[in-house]
C-alpha cells in the first residue's frame, strides 16, 4: 500500500519547516563556538579580563541559541522514523551510520562539555577551560560533518548497492560515503556559511554598541574578532562554495541546469546566465543576459567539458526509466522466488536504473505496464521547477557578495583605525544581521527542493519514502510542532534581545555600562 498523497505532502512540509527552523540555530552554534575559542585564547595568552568577559557574554548568547538547536534537532531524528519509515527501511543500512557516528563522535562531545563551559569557570584552570571551549566547538563542527555526509549521500548515493532479498540499499564502501565529493564540498560550504552568520551576528551587535557609544572597549574588540573571522569565512564560502559540487551525481546535474536555467546543452565552455526570466512552459529563458565561457569554467573547471541542458537530461531520464522498468520486472520475479540466471542477469544489467523505474509507481502500481505517455510524464517529473531555484541561487550569491563588502570594509577601516566615523558601515552591519540566515535558507532550498522528486537521488522517489500513516496524524504533529515552535521562537528572541540590550553588564561584573552609569566606561577602554 503506497502512502497517501496527503501524507507525503504534509510530511514534506513538516520536514522542510522543521529542518529550516533547526537551521536558524545551527549556523550560530557552528560559528560562535569558534569566536568563543578565539576570545578565550586571547584571554589565556594575554590575561586581559575583557577577553574573558567577551567569552562569557557571547557565551551567554551562545547558550540561549544552543538550547534551541538541541530542542529542534531531536525533531529531525524522530521524523526519519515517524514520517519516512520506508526511507528508513530502504536506506537505513547506509544513512543511519553517519547519524550514529555523529552521536558518538560529535554530539556527545559538545553536549558533555557545554555544561562545563558554563559551570566550570571556577573549577578549572584557564587552560583546562579553554580546552573545554575548544571541545565544544570541535564537537559541534564534527557534528555538522557527519550530518552533511548523510545529506551528501542523499544527493549523490555512492558506496551502496541494492539487495533484492532485503529490499533495500546496503553499504559497499564506507570510505566512498565519507569521501563523497558532494559531501565534502557541502561540508566546507555549510560550515563557512555558519561562520559568516555568527561573524555577522557579533559584528552587528558590536556595531550597535559602538553606535550608542557604550562599552566601546568591549565592543571594538568583539567587532575586530568578528571582522577578521568573518572576512576569512566569507572568502571561503565564496571560493569553496562555487558550483564544482554540482559536476557529479545525477540530481546535482539537474540542479546545476535548473539554477542556471540551461535548457539546451551548449558547446563547452558554456556561457553563464547572470539574469533572465526562466520560462518553464516553453523551455527557454527570456531576456537572458549572458557572460560567455564563465559557467563552463566555474562548474567544470575546464574548457572542454559540457554542461548537460535540461532537455537532454529529460531525454536521458526517459531512457533510464525504460531500463528501470526492466529492472523492476526482474525484481518482481526474483522476489517471487524465480532465481533463474536470465532473471538475475536482467536485474544486474538494469539495477542502476531501478530508482527511475520506481518513479512510475505514481502512475501505475505495476510499473511494467506503463504507457509511453506515463513514461514521458515521469521523465518530466525529474526536473524541478526552474524559476524558484534560479532566483534562490541568485539571492544567495548576491548576499554573499554583500557580506564580502561588509567584512572587507570593516576590516579595512579597523586596520586604518578609522572605524568610529564610519557610521554608515556600523548601521549597515546592524541591519545586515538577519541576512546570512536568508542566504543560508535559500542555499538549503536550492539543495533540497532541487533534489525533488527524489529523497535519494536516482534511487528512491520521495512519494515512496513516506510512512503508510493517516493524514490526520501528520496534521496533528504539524500543527503541534508549529504552535510550539512559534512560542519557543518568541521566547528565544525575547531573551536574545534582552541580553543583547543588557550587553556585558549582564555578567554582573560591575565594570560595564548599566552598572557604572557611564556609557563610555569599560574595562580597558580604548
Amino acid at each position, binding site marked *: 500500500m503506497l502512502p497517501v498523497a496527503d501524507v507525503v505532502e504534509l510530511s514534506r512540509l513538516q520536514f522542510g519547516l522543521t529542518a529550516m527552523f533547526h537551521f536558524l540555530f545551527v549556523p550560530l552554534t557552528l560559528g560562535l563556538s569558534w569566536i568563543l575559542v578565539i576570545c578565550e585564547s586571547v584571554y589565556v595568552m594575554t590575561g586581559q579580563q575583557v577577553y574573558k568577559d567577551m567569552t562569557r557574554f557571547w557565551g551567554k548568547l551562545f547558550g540561549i541559541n544552543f538550547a534551541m538547536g538541541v530542542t529542534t534537532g531531536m525533531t529531525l531524528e524522530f521524523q526519519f522514523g515517524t514520517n519516512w519509515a520506508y526511507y*528508513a527501511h530502504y536506506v537505513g543500512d547506509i544513512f*543511519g551510520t553517519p547519524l550514529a557516528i555523529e552521536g558518538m563522535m560529535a554530539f*556527545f562531545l559538545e553536549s558533555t562539555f557545554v555544561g562545563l563551559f558554563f559551570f566550570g569557570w571556577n573549577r578549572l584552570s584557564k587552560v583546562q577551560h579553554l580546552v573545554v571551549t575548544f571541545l565544544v566547538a570541535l564537537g559541534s563542527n564534527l557534528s555538522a560533518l557527519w550530518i552533511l555526509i548523510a545529506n551528501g549521500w542523499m544527493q549523490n548515493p555512492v558506496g551502496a548497492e541494492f*539487495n533484492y532479498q532485503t529490499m533495500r540499499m546496503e553499504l559497499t564502501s564506507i570510505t566512498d560515503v565519507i569521501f563523497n565529493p558532494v559531501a565534502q564540498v557541502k561540508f566546507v560550504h555549510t560550515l563557512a556559511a555558519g561562520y559568516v552568520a555568527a561573524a555577522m551576528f557579533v559584528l552587528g551587535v558590536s556595531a550597535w554598541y559602538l553606535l550608542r557609544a557604550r562599552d566601546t572597549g568591549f565592543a571594538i574588540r568583539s567587532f575586530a574578532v568578528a571582522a577578521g573571522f568573518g572576512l576569512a569565512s566569507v572568502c571561503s564560502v565564496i571560493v569553496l562554495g562555487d558550483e564544482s559540487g554540482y559536476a557529479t551525481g545525477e540530481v546535482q546535474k539537474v540542479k546545476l541546469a535548473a539554477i542556471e536555467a540551461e535548457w539546451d546543452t551548449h558547446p563547452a565552455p558554456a556561457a553563464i546566465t547572470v539574469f533572465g526570466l526562466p520560462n518553464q512552459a516553453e523551455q527557454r529563458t527570456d531576456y537572458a543576459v549572458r557572460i560567455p565561457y564563465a559557467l563552463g569554467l566555474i562548474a567544470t573547471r575546464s574548457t572542454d567539458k559540457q554542461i548537460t541542458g535540461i532537455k537532454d537530461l529529460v531525454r536521458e531520464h526517459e531512457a533510464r526509466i525504460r531500463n528501470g522498468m526492466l529492472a523492476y520486472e526482474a525484481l518482481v520475479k526474483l522476489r517471487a522466488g524465480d532465481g533463474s540466471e536470465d532473471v538475475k542477469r536482467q536485474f544486474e544489467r538494469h539495477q542502476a536504473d531501478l530508482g527511475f523505474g520506481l518513479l512510475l509507481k505514481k502512475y501505475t502500481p505495476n510499473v511494467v505496464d506503463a504507457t509511453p505517455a506515463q513514461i514521458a510524464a515521469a521523465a518530466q517529473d525529474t526536473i524541478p521547477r526552474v524559476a524558484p531555484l534560479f532566483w534562490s541561487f541568485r539571492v544567495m550569491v548576491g548576499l554573499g557578495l554583500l557580506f564580502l563588502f561588509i567584512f572587507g570594509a570593516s576590516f579595512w577601516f579597523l586596520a586604518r583605525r578609522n572605524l568610529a566615523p564610519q557610521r554608515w558601515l556600523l548601521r549597515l552591519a546592524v541591519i545586515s544581521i538577519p541576512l546570512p540566515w536568508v542566504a543560508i535558507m535559500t542555499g538549503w532550498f536550492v539543495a533540497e527542493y532541487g533534489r525533488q522528486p527524489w529523497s535519494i537521488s536516482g534511487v528512491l522517489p520521495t512519494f515512496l519514502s513516506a510512512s503508510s500513516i493517516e493524514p490526520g496524524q501528520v496534521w496533528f504533529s504539524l500543527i503541534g510542532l508549529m504552535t510550539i515552535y512559534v512560542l519557543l521562537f518568541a521566547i528565544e528572541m525575547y531573551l536574545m534581545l534582552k541580553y543583547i540590550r543588557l550587553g556585558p553588564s549582564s555578567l554582573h561584573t560591575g565594570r560595564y555600562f548599566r552598572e557604572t552609569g557611564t556609557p563610555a566606561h569599560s574595562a580597558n577602554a580604548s
Partner: protein
Amino acid sequence: MIDYETLKLIWWGLMVLLMLGFALTGGWDLGVATLLPWVGHNDEERRVAINAIGPTWEGNQTWLITFGAALFAAWPLVYAAAFSVLYVALIFTLFALFLRPVGFDYRSKLDDPRWRNGWDWGLFVGGVFPALVFGVAIGNLFLGLPFAYDDTLRVTYHGGFLDLFSGFTIGTGLLAVAMLTLHGGAYLYLRTDAAVAERARRATLVAGLVTAALFAVLGFWLARLPGYQVVAIGDVNGVLTPTQKQVARDVGLWFANYHAWPRLWLLPAVGLGGAVLTSVAAALRWRWLGLAGSSLAVIGIIVSAGAALFPFVLPSSIDAVASLTAWDAVSSHRTLGLMLGVVAIFIPVIALYTSWVYRVMRGTVTVEQIRRETHTSY
C-alpha cells in the same frame, strides 16, 4: 571479520547497553525533574535540585539521541516500524522533551516568579511524561504492536494511539516512572543537603518500595499473558527478512528463556533487590549505597525485560510472523561490523570524559551556593 550471527547477538547487547546508558544517567535527570514539585518548596530549593543535574543533563540525554541513531543504523527495520507505529505517542514525547533544553537554560534568565514556576512545571512534564511513555511502549512490546509488512517490506498499521493503553501497559508506564524517580531521588539525596536532600530521601524510600511492588506484580501478570516464541527460522548467520520464520504464541511463553536458562532469574532478582536495597539505604541514610541500589534496580529491571523478549525486539500483534527479532531486523553484515568498531572506539572515550566532567562538577549543591552564584547558576 566477526561472523554475522555473532555480530547480531553483540548488537542486541549493545542496544541494551545504550538504553542502559540513558536510563542510568538520563534517568537521574528525568527522576529529579519528576520530583521537582515535591523536593523544592521555593525558588531557591528548586534551583538546588535543578543545578544538581544542570551541568550534566545535556550529555546524559545524548545517550537517548545515540540510542535512536544506533537503532537507525543497526536495526533499521525496528527504527522504521517502531517510530511510525508509535507516531502519536512519540510526537507527544517529543513535545515533552522540548521542554528540557529550553527549561534548563531559560528558567533562571528572568526573575519573574510566574516565568520560573512555568518552566518548573515544564521541566516536571519533560521528566515524567517521557518516562511514562517509554514504560508504556516497553509494555506494549510484550503485547505486540499492530503492524504488518507488504511484499515490498513496507510497514502497514492497524491501530490507534489509545490502543496503546491497557492495564498492563499503564502498569509498565508507572513502573518506569517509579524506577526513574527512585534513581533520580537517590542521586538528588547524594548531591544536595538540608531540606531538599531530606525530601529526596523520603521520596526515594517510598519509590523503592513502589518499584519493587510494581515489578513483582507485573511479573506475575506477564506470566498470564500470551508470549511469543520463534519455532523455526532460517540460517541466523545469513541474510533474513522478517517473514522467514515461524512464531508460536501462547500463555507463559515470555518466560521460556527463563525456563531454558534458570540463571537468568538472577536478573529480576537484582532488579527487585536493588529497589529494596535503595529503600533500606534511604532509611539508614547511606547515600552512596542508595545510588548503587537504584543503579542495580535500573539494570536488573531493564535487562530482565530484554531477556524475556529475546530474540524478539518488536513483536507484532496482528501478524506474529512479521515480528522483528535480533536475527532478522538488522543491518547488513558490513554495517554491523563497521558500527561495532565505531562503538568500541567511542563508548569507552565517552565514558572517560563523562566521568571527568562528573568529577569536576562533584560536591554538594546548597542553597548558599545558589545565592552566591545566582547569576551563573541555572
